[in-house]
């Protein structure tokens, strides 16, 4: 096998065998190709069909659903609603199960709120979720004009309105963006408790496992995406970049390229920079590989989806998932509080206060 992605290079360097990660990526690419062909007739320059979730992360398993939105960046058109309905009909025929119940996906989403409502009362939970998932786990299924425009506009807001990032801070970390990622992660954690109450415990075990692993991985990758800028530039090259005539465009392009990668790729990319963290990398990605193995097994997944909260302490499958999440967490703590790499200092400054 030729190692071409950061994850493949890391697997090869560490002599790992992350077969579940590879299989999930293969399935995701296969489904993406199918969607490209199914959605071809829906292509327009003012809208993009955007997939999120495990499909966009390259972690697609047999039981995965297909989260999608019709992202609209153009003039209002009464026919957009009809287009969204047709996409929903197609997805229903292809997907293993229905799109999530919160109404965040499977609908039309308009660019203006995503770009203009960052913070403040109108930045609803749903708006924050859609905006940040667009950066962290999304892929256009077809023509990407609207998608690319909206991503750049969102990044422009976060990066170019952050005075400290461009001018003042000794750390080259975009704090405005990182703060919103932190807010989003805490929102997910709080919503976990909300859903437990709202759904009377239904689906608790699978949501718990996902919160501890895949949701956390999104936050991990968001922090690392922000840290990357500090790691990739020294003070002098950063000042030169900011002061250059094209500084703004180059900064937006830099982050655009980072967020084109999946959370696993972003994480593997940073781990590759620090060979002394091989042990942590083994824990983080080895545990994640096994977690995807659990989800890929239809019976295990179904078991976790229906397991009552009261039975979880005695349930071997849930306990296995829990142990994996502990190994994952331990690896992350070593990684993020490592002194030699400088991540410790970044985490104390950005991940804590």
């Amino acid at each position, binding site marked *: 096998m030729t190692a071409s992605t950061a994850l493949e290079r890391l697997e090869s360097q560490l002599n790992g065998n992350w077969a579940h990660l590879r299989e999930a990526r293969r399935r995701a690419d296969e489904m993406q190709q199918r969607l490209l062909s199914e959605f071809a007739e829906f292509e327009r320059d003012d809208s993009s069909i955007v997939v999120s979730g495990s499909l966009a992360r390259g972690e697609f398993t047999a039981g995965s659903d297909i989260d999608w939105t019709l992202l609209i960046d153009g003039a209002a058109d009464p026919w957009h609603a009809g287009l969204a309905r047709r996409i929903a009909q197609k997805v229903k025929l292809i997907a293993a199960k229905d799109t999530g119940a919160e109404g965040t996906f499977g609908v039309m989403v308009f660019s203006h709120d995503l770009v203009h409502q960052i913070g403040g009362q109108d930045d609803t939970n749903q708006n924050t979720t859609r905006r940040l998932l667009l950066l962290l786990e999304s892929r256009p299924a077809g023509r990407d004009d609207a998608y690319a425009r909206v991503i750049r506009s969102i990044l*422009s807001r976060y990066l170019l309105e952050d005075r400290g990032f461009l001018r003042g801070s000794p750390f080259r970390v975009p704090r405005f963006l990182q703060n919103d990622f932190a807010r989003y992660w805490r929102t997910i954690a709080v919503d976990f408790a909300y859903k437990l109450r709202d759904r009377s415990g239904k689906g608790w075990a699978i949501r718990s496992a996902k919160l501890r692993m895949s949701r956390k991985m999104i936050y991990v990758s968001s922090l690392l995406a922000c840290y990357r800028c500090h790691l990739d530039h020294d003070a002098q090259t950063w000042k030169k970049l900011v002061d250059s*005539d*094209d500084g*703004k465009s180059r900064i937006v392009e830099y982050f655009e390229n980072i967020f084109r990668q999946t959370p696993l790729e972003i994480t593997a990319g940073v781990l590759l920079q620090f060979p002394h963290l091989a042990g942590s990398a083994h824990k983080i990605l080895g545990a994640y590989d096994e977690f995807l193995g659990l989800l890929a097994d239809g019976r295990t997944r179904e078991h976790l989806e229906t397991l009552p909260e009261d039975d979880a302490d005695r349930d071997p499958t849930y306990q296995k998932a829990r142990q994996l999440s502990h190994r994952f967490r331990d690896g992350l703590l070593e990684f993020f509080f490592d002194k030699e790499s400088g991540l410790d200092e970044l985490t104390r400054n950005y991940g804590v206060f």
Partner: protein
Amino acid sequence: MRPIGFSTGALAHADFRRGLAMTRAAGCPAVELSALRQPELFPMLDALDSLDLTGFQYISIHAPSQMTPEFEQAACERLLAERWRNWPIVIHPDAITAFALWRRFGSLLCVENMDKRKAIGRTARELNLIFQQLPEASLCFDIGHVRQVDPTMTESYLILRDHGARLRQVHISEVSTNNRHNRLSMLSIMAMPAAAHRIPADVPLIIESPVTQAEMADEIGRARRALPLEPVPLHEQGDARIDSCAVCHPGA
């Protein structure tokens, strides 16, 4: 001072003589003779010797934006006959079906970046594919198109970074979400200076805004503010520039 002029097609629909007369009356040193539709090209080329073009430092021809294969071949031959004039031929990449025909124009062929309607030629990466087919061709940088494709102007930076060495002329106007060329608005005047430093002072600006004779001088002023010769410092861009524009240019 940048040489500035107008596209005759923007000033007078399918009437190059009137567009030319308006451009001359406005005292512009540059003009683009536009034949955007097939039937307009040959009559315009036939009339070239009879037109009074004295005083224009820069003249270009805009080829039709859509052509049948038969017409494309005939248009190429006819345009080649005018090659001695050394006028750039502006072409939409999606109008080309036979690249070999157009390769013969060398650097006189001026490929324009496209608006979001088109499937090709909109971004630096897409233009790369076109220039692989037309290695000697130059670039007509349409800043209205690129701003429509990417309002953050990141794509503008990428196009001029990757293809700026080919830059021959600039098209400037505001392009709406419905792909119509409009007059430059405050939004464009705020956004476009990000590209100004990558456009050398001697590269002609061809305005494609549909304006009346009375509006031409004002539109030239807007174009100069959108692409100033002096770079706008980073700290004066964005909101700070909105304030200064509103004060210095009320009603713009």
